[in-house]
């Protein structure tokens, strides 16, 4: 299998024309995922940039979340899921036997659709990752990591006086930001977000989007969203999935103003979805 096929070469060319020069962080080639007989992702090839926010859009059941979960091998936990193809992180095959899946998931963090803080204190939620990976030396160091992560997630001012309260006692939006803080506490290179704002109200959603803007550049971010306005607001690159296939991938402005594929245009204009 050649590392880069024609399609992606064209994409990269188009990408460079758009002006946002970006190093490639993750490469996926011909990735297919099936659940039993059902093919959920069908031969997807895509490059994920380091500095950009990449959005995956598409109608329900189009395979965008499934594909996202292959990027840190979360699909491994589903016994029926089988995936083929090649995914590289900084040139390293993440499905090769020499890749440790635990380390991979620390490098490629994940934020889920429904906020899922541990039923522990706010402090423990954030400190858990650094603790199991041995990233902090001593209590003072851990305190610093927790504070820095909460500050980056924009939650510090709201919770600094009640770090020992349960994480589940926070509001939905705060819980999701806590989950983001938990993910960035282990200092990942990529953060995958699976519809992070779909369970939140508009104000909490706005805060999450603002946060994604601030995190951009420090981490490569991939976000799956149902909400096209959200994709347009937060991302620089957009990939449109339909029926398990990657239909179109390009700069967000191009996808939303001048889509090349008919199906993308129909989806963007609300003909289906």
């Amino acid at each position: 299998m050649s590392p880069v096929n024609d399609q992606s070469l064209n994409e990269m060319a188009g990408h460079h024309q758009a002006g946002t020069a970006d190093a490639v962080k993750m490469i996926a080639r011909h990735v297919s995922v099936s659940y039993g007989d059902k093919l959920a992702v069908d031969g997807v090839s895509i490059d994920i940039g380091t500095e950009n926010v990449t959005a995956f859009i598409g109608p329900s059941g189009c395979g965008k979340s499934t594909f996202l979960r292959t990027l840190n091998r979360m699909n491994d936990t589903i016994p029926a899921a089988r995936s083929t193809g090649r995914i590289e992180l900084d040139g390293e095959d993440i499905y090769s036997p020499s890749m440790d899946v635990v380390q991979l998931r620390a490098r490629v963090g994940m934020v889920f659709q429904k906020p899922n803080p541990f039923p522990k204190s706010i402090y423990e939620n954030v400190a858990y990752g650094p603790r199991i990976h041995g990233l902090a030396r001593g209590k003072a160091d851990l305190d610093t990591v927790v504070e820095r992560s909460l500050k980056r997630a924009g939650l510090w001012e709201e919770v600094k006086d009640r770090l020992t309260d349960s994480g589940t006692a926070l509001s939905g939006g705060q819980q999701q930001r806590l989950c983001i803080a938990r993910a960035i506490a282990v200092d990942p290179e990529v953060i995958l977000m699976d519809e992070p704002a779909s369970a939140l109200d508009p104000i909490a959603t706005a805060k999450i989007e603002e946060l994604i803007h601030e995190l951009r550049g420090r981490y490569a971010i991939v976000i799956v969203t149902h909400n096209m306005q959200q994709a347009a607001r937060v991302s620089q690159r957009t990939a449109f999935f339909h029926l398990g296939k990657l239909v179109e991938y390009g700069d967000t402005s191009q996808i939303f103003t001048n889509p090349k594929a008919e199906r993308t245009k129909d989806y963007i204009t609300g003909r289906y979805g």
Partner: protein
Amino acid sequence: MSDSLVPQLPIAGGVHSPQPERVPTDWKTGSMQGRIRRRYASERRFRLLGLAAIALSVSFLAFLLVTMLGNGLRGFTETQIRVPIDFPRSTLILDPAALEGIDAKAAMAGADIDGTVAAAASARFGRQGPALLSDAAWVRVRDAIADDPSILSGRQEFWLPASTTLDLVKKGKAPEAKPFFHQIAALDGATRTRLNTNFLTGADATDPTVAGIWGAFKGSLLTMLVTLALAFPIGVFSAVYLEEYAPRNRWTDLIEVSINNLAAVPSIIFGLLGLAVFLNLMHLPRSAPLVGGLTLALMTMPVIVIAGRNAIKSVPPSIRDAALGIGASRVQVVFHHVIPLALPGILTGTIIGMARALGETAPLLMIGMRAFIASPPGGLTDPGTVLPVQVFLWSDEVSRGFVEKTSAAIIVLLVFLLAMNGLAIYLRNKFERRW
């Protein structure tokens, strides 16, 4: 074009009026009112049925407690009778000096304290005097002498445990006894009722005034320790493996069905299994709490596995995702998140299983724990018995003194059970608060 937008209603005669005039519902008609009344009546009926069920079970419980306490509390007391012993004038030959040295025990064993006490009782209450005293009365005298040999030099008054007949007469339970006992019981200052410390510290005996519950209590304690130490870890780890690791295939299903069936197997069959495997095959000591614990662990384990699996299953998958998503390993997910969250449920299952094991008699009869054992077990391999078996044995005794001992043993068993459950509930609440 516009036709297709009108919803097609399946109405007969729609040819004339595609959308017939809708008659407003009259909520005040007689049939409506009747429906409301019937709904209210059925709700009232259900509430009353529930209330009646609760009242019935509370009254059963109250009946049980009142009967047990009424009979059993007397089992914790003993009647004592005052007997003066004039040592210098008695036939007892015992040199106080001999009691100071290392031969004290031998000197005491050689002395006829039993005869001296009987003679003193005859001197005080007449020819039938010795019948007033418990078989173990002389032991108190011996212990008193051992404590303070100087009492041998003079006349001393002792409160000695009364015989079963006098004890029952004093407690008003034996109106048919000989008049002599009634006279003594009515005699001012001759008898008194005290807490039966021997009952709480002694082991089984043929004489109900001497029999104690401590042997069976300790046996139960040791048996439960063995059961818990085996059934809890094995049960929890089986549950974790089956829920978190086992592949879904026919073998897993088979194991699952087997464990579920095991929980329903009658307990006596576990006793036969214990007899065949632990005694005949492995040659472990008969009647030992170790074997009892092993047998009961077999019985308790499936209960813990089933409860544990349900508890683990109810931990939301999002928690596992969250931990895996920041790079926790499978073992870390299980030990840091799944087990702590499932622990309250696992503990509930353990309480049920252990309570059942504590009250179990049948399997222990099969492995010889029904033997008459007059001293508390010193360790796991010493012969012993357990509380429910002791209750069973005493309820079978001929002597009437054992009736109240049986009830008292039941009270001890229930208190043990309550203490065990209380501890488990405390632990459960503690873990629930932490999370």
